[in-house]
């Protein structure tokens, strides 16, 4: 059996679970930063296996969910510009803006294509030289290098009709913003596994260093998440917060230096608006001036887009969910007026939004 499948074996869970149960820390609150971790935890029913005094909260690690309402409105307006073909990853299609979604814009005639890879967007640009092909660059540091790679490739090929509308974000600054706000009381953080594969565990070292909060980088099989929780609990018990790596087969302290270098070359770090947080310093990636001809934001038609600011539905508590202040099941509209069929906000739309995960896997009653 390939070594990869070994980590899927249910039998591996027993030993680490017993370790967890034997560590006496008293009640602890751990935040899993990443939407994929929330989904994996709920899908496997992991919470049922943990001791009752280990509480898990979900964090802002869903790039679709944290995309600000104004940015969603901007991307919908962008799709409607004549001559523009908008390429997007599938998650963004149904996120509700103030006046509809990309899916609705597509039904109204906008040319919107779903892509699996930024390379597919390049191919669309090659095949449609008369269209301005704009990639909607939503993602964290896992995806940002792939966006950067597409820009470099476009430059090398002279693909003049390719643009990127970059809404890419970086994770450590929002963790800092969350901790600095003092709003959430957490004892440990399960750090994002694939973001860390790219940036390394080093950027998260300020968390134990400045806030004395325990951390471990986790993979995505149930046993990977449990191992990270075990490492965090050991740190808490011994009062020795650190950033442990439970996903060492893919994560190192340094990450993928090649990918990091590429991001530094192609992107510039700027303040960015995060849903639920407002402006977070040095947390957004925009196309660097050296690659300006591929920056959709430099395009006059895009720069000139006038968006009327419009507040999200007042019943929507996505902001509170993203900051870990509220669990989806505690939101008054959860399942009552807000559901995947008619979402009030992106946390219920994105397949890795906390609310969508709780709705699909975490409830005890059908609906």
């Amino acid at each position, binding site marked *: 059996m390939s070594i990869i499948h070994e980590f899927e074996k249910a039998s591996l869970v027993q030993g680490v679970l017993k370790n967890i149960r034997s560590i006496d820390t008293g009640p602890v609150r751990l935040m899993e930063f990443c939407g994929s971790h929330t989904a994996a935890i709920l899908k496997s*029913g992991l919470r*049922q296996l943990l001791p009752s005094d280990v509480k898990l909260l979900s964090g802002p690690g869903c790039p679709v969910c944290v995309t600000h309402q104004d940015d969603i409105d901007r991307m919908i307006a962008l799709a409607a510009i004549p001559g523009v073909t908008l390429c997007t990853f599938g998650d963004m299609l149904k996120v509700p803006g103030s006046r509809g979604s990309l899916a609705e814009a597509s039904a109204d005639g906008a040319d919107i294509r779903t892509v699996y890879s930024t390379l597919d967007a390049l191919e669309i640009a090659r095949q449609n030289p008369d269209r301005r092909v704009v990639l909607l660059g939503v993602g964290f540091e896992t995806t940002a290098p792939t966006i950067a790679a597409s820009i470099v490739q476009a430059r090398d090929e002279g693909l003049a009709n390719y643009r990127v509308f970059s809404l890419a974000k970086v994770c450590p600054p929002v963790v800092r913003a969350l901790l600095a706000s003092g709003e959430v009381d957490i004892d440990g953080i399960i750090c994002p596994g694939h973001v860390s594969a790219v940036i390394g565990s080093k950027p998260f070292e300020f968390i134990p260093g400045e806030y004395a909060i325990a951390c471990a980088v986790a993979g995505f099989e149930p046993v990977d998440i449990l191992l990270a929780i075990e490492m965090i609990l050991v740190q808490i018990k011994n009062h020795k917060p650190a950033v442990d790596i439970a996903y060492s087969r893919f994560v190192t302290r340094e990450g993928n230096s090649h990918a990091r270098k590429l991001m530094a070359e192609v992107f510039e770090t700027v303040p960015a608006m995060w849903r639920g947080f407002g402006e977070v310093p040095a947390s957004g990636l925009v196309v660097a001036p050296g690659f300006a001809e591929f920056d959709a934001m430099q395009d006059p038609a895009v720069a000139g887009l006038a968006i009327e600011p419009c507040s999200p539905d007042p019943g929507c508590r996505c902001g509170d969910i993203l900051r870990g202040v509220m669990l989806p099941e505690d939101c008054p509209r959860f399942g009552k007026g807000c559901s995947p069929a008619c979402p009030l906000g992106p946390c219920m739309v994105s397949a890795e939004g906390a609310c969508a995960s709780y709705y699909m896997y975490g409830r005890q009653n059908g*609906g």
Partner: protein
Amino acid sequence: MADKILMAHGSGGLMSHDLITSRVAAKLQNEILGTMDDAAVLNCEGRLAFTTDSYVVTPCFFPGGDIGKLAVCGTVNDLSVMGASPRYLSLGLILEEGLPLSELDTIMDSIAAAASEAGVQVVTGDTKVVARGSADKIFINTSGIGLLRPGTRISGSCARPGDVIIINGTIADHGTAVLSQREGLKFSGELCSDCAPLNGLVEAVLDACGDIHAMRDPTRGGLATSLNEIARQSSVGIVINEEAVPVRQPVASLCELLGLDPLYVANEGKLLVFVPASGAEKVVGAMQNQKYGRQARVIGKVTEAGPSRVMMRTRLGTTRIVNMITGDLLPRIC
């Protein structure tokens, strides 16, 4: 001589007539169709089941089948799971101007082969042509009539606490096979639609046990959707075992790659049977003796009357809900 469908093929004149007689009817040879009257005259005695479905799958051709095979099997299976023996189908074709005649021929061959395997006759039909861009190559509608076994009362509302739930084989094969052919995804591999006529399998089930409560062929929305539908119709709770639900490894891998849950991915050759516990072993044995039931197994049971919900016992021994999905599954990366 044109090698593709032209508007003239739909005009009702000589070209229409030639198309229908030589390319459509010629492949479906039977006495009733041969009369070429405005309606088919049928001799049926007893209670009838009647169903209709339209087929718009894209792409038309995929590993394991095509839209033609789908159009026959889908309707045959809808009749079969009611406990009806499928007899007659109608065939409505909407052809897009520009459709290569060779593709129409292949699809008609598939329809003929599937009808022959299922033992059904296509006895009436209609062919229309629409302008390029007004349809995606070919859309098909089939309606079907089947004869119910006397005394049969099989329905999604008849599942009862204690019933055992049996499936005939692996899930998510069809959806992944079709998805792998979609523009832009470009995955290749050992994927194959499970599209198949299940009436023979159903006959074996009904012969093995006279007390089948419910049957369903999970299609769009996958296994999870069918289980939820029956739970609602019957007002019962259902529990399935994750370990017991069979999924081929390449199918599971493609689903993981695209962020899909196999429980919600389409099937076209799967049969769910709800049977009292006393009959379960016999039904599984009878199914395993059939071509499309070799991997038949128990995957769960009906637990209690009351609020309808579907739960799953995971590989880890935990329990979680299997919710009804809303809307389309989208391939996603993040």
